[in-house]
């Protein structure tokens, strides 16, 4: 039983609150004992306070964290368009989430792909309703769970923008978000995290969203960038980041906020959250340094952007492993993810020639895949992970691989549909004149800097 609580499904089990059962038992319980509502679960004020804090930390990752991290990496003329697209797309995701996102991902009933629509427009959710945590009989207010998961949907769709900045229309980003969340994010979140979800039932480990958030966003970003095409002048023109200072600030905000993302995914203020916390420190620290080391080994200078990129790669990789690894497993995982992501963005991307402008695929997609598979390794008890003695690495890796590959295919197909609909409705790409002059003036009528 204890072991099962470590499985990542983030409260998979809203429906199960009634039964006060453990997440992994969701299906059995649902089939056998629909009327077993014995005693009301306890809502702990400490858990609730921590989850409210975590939720706000994830919001901070988006605005201003991701907005500054991405914004600093583009050219001066596109700074505002990046910040505006990220802010607006996240805001849009929040509204969509309360309308049909929450119920599509975590509503009662439904099937292995999506949940039922009984909680559309948050029907039946009140201050008195609760969402189960991973401890039997302990719950958090359902509104807190709704908000926490809302921020995950918002940041995931914002991450996708990293590959398409400096050339995609604002309106296209909004249409894309509407379709993509509905046909890609909500189903994948359900499949991985909900009690009756396809991968959750198989025992896939994804503590805080390595698959749901990072593989999903990264692969979608790649597909979107391929359909959208390269920026004018890529890769010959000078396109250096306009402010690595802001990227550095954004990196710091992301790292701090990520404690809400990872440790918050324990859904309680307990030992599992503490494990996620230390892993979010050490895997990230390791990854930041190993990226710089990879630069040195390849004859370059250890760079500020390299450090920032390593930090994010480490955070991405440790996301699925946060509560599923010992600290030293996490350090190795962070280092490996960082080195592989370094080669993905510095060597493989230029060779293949696609224009993933801010390396959303190279860092989140690749880092997410390494994290998803790596979690199947570092979970091992003999590597310091929380797995039980009867745990089988081979089986776990197979489940992790199936989950990752299915998510890749799902995200790729869904993104293609969403992007082509956005193209149909909005034209997708700004005119060459606007692209040259910058999206700040062309799309928003402002400049970021008026000296």
């Amino acid at each position, binding site marked *: 039983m204890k072991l099962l609580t470590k499985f990542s499904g983030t409260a998979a089990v809203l429906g199960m609150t009634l039964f006060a059962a453990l997440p992994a038992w969701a299906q059995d319980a649902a089939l056998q004992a629909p009327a077993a509502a014995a005693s009301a679960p306890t809502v702990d004020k400490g858990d609730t306070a921590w989850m409210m804090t975590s939720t706000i930390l994830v919001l901070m990752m988006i605005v201003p964290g991701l907005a500054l991290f991405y914004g600093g990496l583009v050219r001066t003329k596109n700074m505002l368009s990046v910040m505006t697209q990220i802010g607006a797309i996240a805001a849009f995701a929040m509204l969509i989430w309360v309308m049909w996102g929450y119920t599509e991902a975590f509503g009662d009933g439904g099937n292995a792909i999506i949940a039922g629509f009984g909680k559309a427009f948050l029907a039946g959710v009140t201050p008195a309703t609760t969402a189960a945590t991973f401890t039997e009989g302990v719950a958090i207010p359902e509104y807190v769970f709704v908000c926490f998961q809302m921020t995950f949907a918002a940041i995931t769709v914002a991450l996708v923008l990293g590959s398409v900045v400096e050339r995609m229309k604002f309106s296209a980003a909004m249409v894309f978000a509407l379709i993509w969340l509905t046909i890609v994010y909500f189903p994948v979140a359900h499949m991985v995290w909900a009690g009756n979800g396809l991968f959750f039932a198989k025992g896939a480990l994804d503590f805080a969203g390595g698959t749901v958030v990072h593989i999903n966003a990264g692969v979608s970003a790649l597909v979107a960038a391929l359909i959208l095409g390269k920026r004018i002048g890529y890769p010959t023109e000078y*396109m*250096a*980041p306009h402010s690595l200072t802001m990227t550095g600030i954004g990196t710091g905000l992301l790292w701090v906020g990520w404690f809400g993302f990872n440790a918050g995914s324990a859904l309680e203020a307990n030992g599992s959250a503490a494990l996620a916390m230390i892993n979010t420190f050490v895997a990230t620290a390791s990854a930041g340094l190993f990226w710089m080391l990879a630069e040195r080994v390849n004859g370059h200078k250890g*760079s500020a952007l*390299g450090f920032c990129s390593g930090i994010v790669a480490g955070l991405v990789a440790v996301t699925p492993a946060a509560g599923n690894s010992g600290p030293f497993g996490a350090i190795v995982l962070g280092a490996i993810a960082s080195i592989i992501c370094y080669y993905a963005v510095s060597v493989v991307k230029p060779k293949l020639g696609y224009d993933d402008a801010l*390396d959303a695929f*190279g860092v989140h997609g690749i880092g997410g895949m390494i994290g998803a598979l790596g979690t199947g390794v570092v979970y091992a008890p003999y590597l310091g992970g929380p797995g039980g003695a009867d745990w089988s690495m081979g089986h776990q890796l197979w489940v992790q691989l199936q989950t990752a590959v299915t998510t890749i295919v799902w995200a790729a197909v869904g993104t293609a549909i969403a992007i082509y609909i956005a193209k149909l409705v909005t034209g997708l790409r700004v005119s060459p004149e606007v692209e040259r002059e910058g999206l700040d003036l062309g799309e928003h009528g402002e400049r970021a800097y008026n000296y």
Partner: protein
Amino acid sequence: MKLIIAIIKPFKLDEVREALTEIGVAGMTVTEVKGFGRQKGQTEIYRGAEYSTNMVPKIKIEIVCASDLADRVVEAIQAAANTGAIGDGKIFVLDVGQAVRIRTGETDQTAL
């Protein structure tokens, strides 16, 4: 009157200004510029994307002075801005036809 244009390394500006003040130069115009000569530019690398910048940042100083002061100005700049490495810059001297002080309408030498 002579117009003296000097392109120097940015960090040498203060020394040059002090040297010129000592010999009685009362004013100058300073501009941040970019250019290239024998000194090569830098290579910047951002996540593997390499950009070699051919243009090197420099400071351009413009001074107009009486013709008899021009040689001393050139010497002062040459001495103060010298590091001995390539990229120390260049000095050009041109003849000036007329000068007017906008506030008073004074012309030529008295306008300087």
